[in-house]
């Protein structure tokens, strides 16, 4: 009983067709665990905003089912609206009144009892770090402050699920950090499930528990950020070989590259964990699944051949690479292309 994981959002075969022809969503299946921070990544026009608008009951799916804590977003839409908070991509506060007044209007719309109203508003303002500017007109706020105010409006009712559509779009790094730090501490306190859309990979990487990549209306990849990165299994280890022309000469190195390298390459490629290897200039690139295991073995091979190393650098795939692979327009690749692609990762 205690071990059962509560499901916040459950989506099955969700489809949305616009004007009878454009498949904005094409059979989406997705499960989001309660109290998780969930990131939906996708290129522009991939369907992520459509998915969020369906989940927030703004319009109806063409087919399929979506539930928020068991409530169907079509049949129980009124109930869904009571447990969710939503911040659209575009600015969504009234700028000609104060921040406090914005929250006050929302508190009244949501029917926060008048006895608790003030406290709820100040709690929300404080959780977003806006208590000092609350009584100033919103038109004088910075972009980051407006975003935090919008989130504060959504947090007012302590929603069970908070939907954020591109929450930090157009914000500078420090404003983005402020938004996320406030969100995280709020989530910690209230156990809110956060579902956000973004195309900032670093944000998904840093702040999300799980990530899904959507492309052309379909979920193409799902997992934790590190699972996704591992799924590329293409860490590259670059060995810069010591220049044989330097004053400090090892008896065997002078003659080593490039003549002897083909043989070494064969031996390195033959290693268990190595996927591919290539030699450019004086750099040996090796593509491996797990560098920590592969590195000692490769060094051993190089040593046996008496090759001196200048430097070793390891490059792990970022979520950007994962995104490009699954949401880019690339074709499935052959084994021989692995290295080619892997070396592209570093650029």
């Amino acid at each position, binding site marked *: 009983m205690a071990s059962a994981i509560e499901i916040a959002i459950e989506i099955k075969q969700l489809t949305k067709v616009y004007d009878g022809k454009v498949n904005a969503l094409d059979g989406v299946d997705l499960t989001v665990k309660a109290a998780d921070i969930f990131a939906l990544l996708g290129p522009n026009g991939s369907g992520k905003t459509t998915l969020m*608008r369906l989940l*927030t*009951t*703004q*319009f109806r799916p063409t087919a399929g089912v979506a539930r928020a804590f068991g409530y169907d977003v079509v049949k129980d839409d*009124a109930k869904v*609206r*009571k447990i*969710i908070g*939503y*911040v*659209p*991509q*575009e*600015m*969504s*506060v*009234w700028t*000609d*009144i*104060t921040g406090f*007044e914005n929250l006050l*209007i*929302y508190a*009244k*719309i*949501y*029917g926060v009892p008048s006895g608790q109203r003030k406290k709820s508003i100040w709690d929300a303002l404080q959780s977003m770090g806006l208590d000092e500017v609350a009584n100033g*007109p919103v038109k004088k706020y910075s972009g980051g402050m407006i975003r935090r105010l*919008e989130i504060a*409006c959504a947090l007012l009712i302590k929603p069970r699920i908070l939907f954020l559509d591109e929450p930090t779009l157009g914000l500078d790094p420090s404003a983005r950090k402020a938004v996320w730090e406030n969100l995280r501490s709020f989530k910690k306190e209230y156990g809110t499930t956060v579902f956000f859309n973004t195309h900032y990979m670093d944000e998904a990487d840093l702040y999300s528990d799980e990530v899904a990549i959507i492309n052309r209306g379909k979920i193409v990849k799902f997992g934790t950020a590190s699972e996704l990165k591992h799924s590329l299994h293409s860490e590259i280890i670059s060995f810069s070989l010591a220049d044989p022309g330097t004053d400090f000469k090892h008896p065997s190195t002078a003659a080593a590259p490039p003549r002897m390298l083909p043989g070494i390459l064969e031996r390195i490629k033959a290693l268990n964990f190595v996927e591919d290897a290539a030699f450019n200039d004086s750099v040996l690139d090796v593509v491996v699944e797990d560098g920590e295991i592969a590195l000692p073995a490769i060094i051993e091979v190089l040593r046996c051949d008496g090759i001196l190393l200048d430097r070793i650098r390891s490059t792990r795939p970022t979520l950007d690479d994962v995104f490009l692979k699954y949401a880019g327009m690339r074709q499935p690749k052959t084994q021989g292309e692995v290295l080619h692609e892997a070396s592209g990762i570093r650029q």
Partner: protein
Amino acid sequence: MAFNDSLREMFAMIELEMRRLRHDRTEIYTRAVQPILWLAVYGTVMSHVRDIPTNGIPYIDYITPGVLLQSTIFVSVFYGLTIVWERETGILKRLLVAPASRYATVIGRAIASGVRAVVQALIIFPVAILLGVKFIPNPLYILAAFLMLFMISGGFAALSIFVASLMKTRERFMGIGQAMIMPLFFASNALYPISLMPPFLQSIAFVNPLTYAVDAVRGLMISGNVANVPADFVAVIVFDILIFTVASISFRKIIE
């Protein structure tokens, strides 16, 4: 429950409008300039033309109800612009995700616009007195006249929201708004009796809700002839119910 949610949203929308008004009153004052000019300039000049049959009422007094209504309806007819703006930003999306039903948003906003119109009229009212317009000193009549003003303004605001839900962009909306306002004003009894109009215009004036509103306000404030007032109220109530319904139904379209 759902009804309570909707009622709350309506009141919240009215409060929002009042708070906006409090933060920036310039609009109310600048909007008062035009009707005052109508009375002070047009009214004064035209009162020398003695051919307009006003039943012995001075011409400025005769047009005061029309000008009062025109100025408030102008606010209402362009109220849809606020909705278009809120559609372009994320405010509407957000309101639609709130627990209240969609008609609450429409009706709440339309009523809010009506309240704004009343505030607007309250600015022009004393100026009209200063210009020598003689109102019937019956507080009940004045109150009823303001009620009519509120109802017709709310109705036109709903009409404006309806147009906004079809037009969706500022430019198209402005075009329609401009095209609506002048015929509305001239094809009514605001400036002259309907009997002076050619038959074609008369039939437009007959279905123009503004005609009934002007007739009621003129009866209550100026002429004291209130025989038609109940019928006028019925006409405006029918208009309000119709347009509130149509606007609420079409409102769904605005976010799609």
